[in-house]
C-alpha cells in the first residue's frame, strides 16, 4: 500500500495547473484524493505527477447566477451540506451528499472529484444527470463544456480528454419540484448496492416533468429516459410507477460483486427506483 514515485505540484491557478498537466504527460490532478490515492497505493495507477488543485481559490465556492447554481469543482461535500444556497435551490444535493461516506471523507472529498473520476460507485454523477448539469472544463487550448448526460463513457472512462480539468458544475435550478435520492448500502461509507435519483414536477394532478438516474447499476451512471417517459403525462398512480420501474430495470446491468448478484441488484434497484419516485411525488405534491 505504498505508491510509486511521483512529483507533487500545488499550483495557484487553473492556467498553471493546466500547464503542469500538459507538461507531465501522464500526470493526474488531485482533488480530494479518495479514489485516486488508494489506486496509487495499490499501484493500479502510477502517475508521474500529481497536480493538487487544493490551492486554487477560483475552484471553490457556490454561487447563483440567474437561474443557475454554479459550484466550483473543489467545493467539498461538507461545504455542499453547509450551503444555504444548495439547501434552498437544490435540496437533492443535500440528500445525496449526506449519504456519501462519512464526515471525515466529506470534509476533504470534492464534488469535482466525485463527478469527474468516472467511478460508477460515485453518487453525484447520477444526480447531475438527473439535474441535467453541465461540466465546465479547462483544457490545454481552450475551455469547453460537456453535459453530464454525455460525460460518462464507461467504468472510469469519461469525455474528459488528456490535459483537461473539470473546473465547475453548472446546474439549472428547477422550479417547484419533488426529489429523492434513495440509496441502499451495506454500511456507512460503502458504495451503493443500488441507488436512484428522481426529480418530478406535478401539474394539475399529473406528472409534468420527470428525470430518473441510477447509481452503480451499470458500468456508468444511467439516465433512465424510458422510465421517466413512462411517468410523464400520467397521473402518479401505481400502474404508471410500475411501468417506470420496469423500464428502469431494463437498462440496469450491474456488476457481480460482494454487494450482491446482478439479479439481486436489479431487483433491489427497481425497488429503490420505486421508493425514490414515490417520495419525489409526495414532495412534489406537498
Amino acid at each position, binding site marked *: *500500500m*505504498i505508491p*510509486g*514515485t511521483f512529483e507533487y505540484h500545488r499550483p495557484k491557478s487553473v492556467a498553471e495547473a493546466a500547464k503542469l498537466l500538459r507538461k507531465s504527460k501522464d500526470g493526474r490532478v488531485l482533488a480530494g484524493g479518495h479514489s485516486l490515492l488508494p489506486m496509487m497505493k495499490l*499501484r493500479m495507477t502510477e502517475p508521474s505527477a500529481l497536480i493538487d488543485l487544493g490551492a486554487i481559490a477560483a475552484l471553490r465556492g457556490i454561487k447563483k447566477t440567474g437561474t443557475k447554481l454554479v459550484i466550483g469543482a473543489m467545493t467539498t461535500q461538507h461545504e455542499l451540506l453547509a450551503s444555504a444556497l444548495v439547501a434552498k435551490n437544490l435540496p437533492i444535493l443535500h440528500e445525496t451528499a449526506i449519504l456519501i461516506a*462519512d464526515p471525515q471523507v466529506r470534509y476533504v472529498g470534492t464534488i469535482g472529484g466525485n463527478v469527474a473520476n468516472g467511478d460508477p460507485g460515485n453518487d453525484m454523477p447520477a444526480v447531475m444527470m438527473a439535474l441535467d448539469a453541465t461540466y465546465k472544463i479547462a483544457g490545454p487550448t481552450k475551455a469547453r463544456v460537456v453535459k453530464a448526460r454525455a460525460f460518462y463513457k464507461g467504468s472510469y472512462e469519461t469525455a474528459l480528454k488528456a490535459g483537461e480539468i473539470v473546473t465547475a458544475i453548472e446546474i439549472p435550478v428547477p422550479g417547484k419540484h419533488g426529489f429523492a435520492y434513495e440509496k*441502499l448500502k*451495506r*454500511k*456507512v*461509507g*460503502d*458504495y451503493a*448496492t443500488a441507488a436512484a435519483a428522481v426529480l418530478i414536477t406535478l401539474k394539475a394532478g399529473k406528472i409534468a416533468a420527470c428525470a430518473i438516474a441510477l447509481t452503480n447499476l451499470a458500468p456508468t451512471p444511467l439516465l433512465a429516459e424510458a422510465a421517466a417517459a413512462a411517468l410523464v403525462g400520467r397521473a402518479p398512480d401505481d400502474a404508471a410507477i410500475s411501468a417506470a420501474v420496469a423500464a428502469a430495470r431494463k437498462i440496469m446491468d450491474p456488476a457481480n*460483486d*460482494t*454487494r*450482491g*448478484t446482478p439479479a*439481486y*441488484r436489479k*431487483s*433491489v434497484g427497481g*425497488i429503490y427506483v420505486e421508493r425514490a419516485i414515490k417520495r419525489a411525488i409526495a414532495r412534489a405534491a406537498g
Partner: protein
Amino acid sequence: MNDMSPNKAEREAKLEGMGCRRKRVEDVRFTQGKGNFVDDIKLPGMLFGDFVRSPYAHARIKGINIKKAMKVPGVLAVLTATELKGVNLAWMPTLAGDVQMVLADGKVLFQNQEVAFVVATDRYAAADGVEAVEVDYEALPVLVDPFKAMDKNAPVLREDLKGKTSGAHGPRKHHNHIFEWTMGDKDLTEAAFRKADVTIKELISYHRTHPSPLETCQSVASFDKIKGELTVWGTFQAPHVIRTVASLISTIPEHKIHVISPDVGGGFGNKVGAYPGYICSIVASIVTGKPVKWVEDRIENLTATSFARDYHMTAEIAATKDGKVQALRVHVLADHGAFDACADPSKWPAGFFNIVTGSYDFPVAHCAVDGVYTNKAPGGVAYRCSFRVTEAAYCIERAMDILAKKLNMDPAELRLKNFIRRDQFPYQSALGWEYDSGDYHTAMKQGMEKIGYPALREEQKRKQADFKAGKTRDIMGIGVSFFTEIVGAGPSKNCDILGIAMFDSCEIRIHPTGSAIARVGTKSTGQAHETTWAQIIATEIGIPSADIMVEEGNTDTAPYGLGTYGSRSTPVAGAAIAMAARKIKAKAQMIAAYMLEVHEGDLQFDIDGFRVKGLPEKFKSMKEIAWAAYHSVPPGMEPGLEAVSYYDPPNMTYPFGAYFCVMDIDVDTGVYKIRRFYALDDCGTRINPMVIEGQVHGGLTEAFAIAMGQEIRYDAGGNVLTGSFMDFFIPTAVETPVWETDHTVTPSPHHPIGAKGVGESPNVGGVPAFSNAVNDAFGFLGATHIQMPHDYWRNWEAAKSLGLIK
C-alpha cells in the same frame, strides 16, 4: 480509631479491588495517542522489509529474477527460499504439527503467499524493490472447494508430503487430507440413532472469516553480532512461546533472545501464530547486521495471515418425540488452506470442538473432523473464541433450532427441557469434558423474562398472519442461543504447545513504601490487564490498585507464560496472580504478627491490613508491613516481600450465557433491522463489570459482523474477493445494534477467585443468536437452514428460493 478514621466501605473503595468499575488505566495513554506499538519503534540504522507476493493461488515458480530490484536505490537485499535454505529456514513448523513455507519453495499454494523479501533503507524503497522483482510463474489447477479436496483427481497441493501416509495427527486418507480426529462412542451413538423417534440432519457451514485486528501483524528484529543476541519486538499474543520457537528454529540460545510485545492493537487470535514476516525480519537482521522492521498492510493481513473458521459441519440429533435429546453425531470437513497453521494446543487438531454437545444432556455423542488442504491462506485461528468453540456452539445451537422446528416445539422450551441441570455439575460430557459448574435454567429463564419472550412470540404470530395476508413484506425473527464455552487452556493433563504445558504465571514484588509491581506471563491486546490484574491483587492483599503497576510482554522480565487467547488469561493467569498474592499475604501476616507481638494465628486480614482478633485497635496496614519487610523482619526470615506463582489449572472453566436477538427482515430487499439484542453472561466472579461489559460489547459487534456479512470469499480461481475493508464487512457504530447486557454469577469451584473468562463468550454465543433469528424469521415460510453470512443479498436469495420474490 476515631471519627476521622475511614470506615470499612471507604477503605474498601480506596482499594478499587474486585467488583469495582475501575476505569481502564491503559486508556490514559491510548486516548492521547501515546501508546507504544511495534510501528512506533525506531532504531538507529533500521531497515525495512516488504514481501513480493504471489498473484496466483497455485503455480509453479520457474524463476525469480532480482537483478532489477537490486538496482532500485535503497534496496540492499532480496531474500528468497534459496537464501533461507542456507540457514535452514525456508520452511517453519506450525503450531499444528505441519510445516509451512516461509518463502515460496518451488511453488505457491495461495494467493498473496510470500515469495521474496526485499530489504531496503526505507519502506518506500522496499515497495519499489518489490515491484521490480520478476517472478516467472506457471499456473497450476486451483483447488478452492474443500468438498472437492479429496476427489480422486484433485490437484496435488503439498508435493513436500508426497508418500507420507500419516501426519502429526495420524493417518492421511488422500494427498490433500491432513488428519481425521474422532471423539465419543460411535457404536452407542449409532444404536441411539437406530432407536430414535425423531432425527434431524443438516449441513451447517461456518464460513471463512478473519479476526482483522486494528493493528496488523508486524515485527522489528535486531541482531547484535558481537553479543550474539537477538531482540524481537512484535505483535505477539504469546511472546514467551515465540522466544522458545525462535530459539528452537534459529539455534540461538534462548537466553540470548529477547522477545518484547509492546502495546498490541487487538489480536483476536490473529497474533498467536508465527508468520513468515517475523522469520524474514529476523533473518534479514542477521544477514545485514542492522535492525529490520516488517509491517503488514491491511490487504496482506486479510489475505495472508491467519483466517478463522471454514468449518463445514454435518450435524445429526436423535431425540424422543417429546423432545428429549438422545444422541448427537457431527462430521466436520475442515478447510485449513495451504498449510495446517491452526492455532490449537498441540494434541488438539480440531481444538476443543468436542464441546459441541453444548449445554445439553446428551447421553451419547460422536464427532469426527477431517482436515483438508486447499489453495487458500493457511490457518485457522480462534477468532475471539476458545479453540473451535464458536464453530461448535454455532453447530449445536443451529441444530437444536432445527430439531425444535421438526418437533414443532418452541426453541427456548426445547433447550429448557434438555439443559444439564444444576445438580448434575460437575458434569461429564459424552465427548469427554468435565463441566465445572453451571446454572443454565436460571440464566435462560432470567433472559426470557427480561426480553419478554412470550409476548415476542405472540407478536411474531400476528406478523406472520399479516405477511400471509399480504399486509406486510416484513418478517420477524427471534433468535435464541444458549452457549457453553470452554476456556482457560489449560490443564497440563490436556494441553500443551510444542510440549510446553499451558500454565501461566505471576510475579509480585512489594516495594518498601507499599506500592508494587506485578509481572504476568499473559499479554493484553486490549483486554485491560493493567487495570484488572491490579484489582485482583488489591483485594487479595489490601494495596490500592492505583499503587500496583502491571507489566507484561517482555520475556526478560516477565515470568514464562503461554499468552493471551482462548479467554485463558483470567482462568489461568488470574489464578496465578491470586496465588502469588496469597503467598505475599502469608508472609505479610508473619511480619505483622512479629510487629504486633502476637502469634500469627491471632491475626485476621481486614481489607488493607492485619488486625488482632478481639483487639481491634491493634492493626498493621499493608503499607506498614511492606516497610517492615525491608527493615525489621522476624529473626531468621529473609527480608523483602515478593512471590512467584506458576499455575497449572486443575480444569478448564465453563462460562455460559443466554442470548436473544429480535430482528425484522424486508424480504424484497433482504435488508434487516436488529430490533433488540439481549446478552446474559455468566463468567463466574466479576473482576471489573465495566471491562466485562466492554468485552461483551466488542465480542457482540464482531459476532454481528460475522453472522451478517463478514467473510473471506474466494472466486473459483482462488482470488480473494474480500481483501480490503471496502468489501470485508467491519460494522461502524451506525450499523451496530444497541446491546442489552445482563449477568448471573456462578463461580468456578476450582478457580482461586471463582472467575471464568469472558472476552470470547459474546462471539461464541452471539453468532448463533443472529443466525437463529434469520432462520426463525424464514422458518414459517418453509426454510430449515439458511447458511451464513446473512447479508442483504443472501437474505433476498433465501426469500427467492422460498418463492417469495416475483
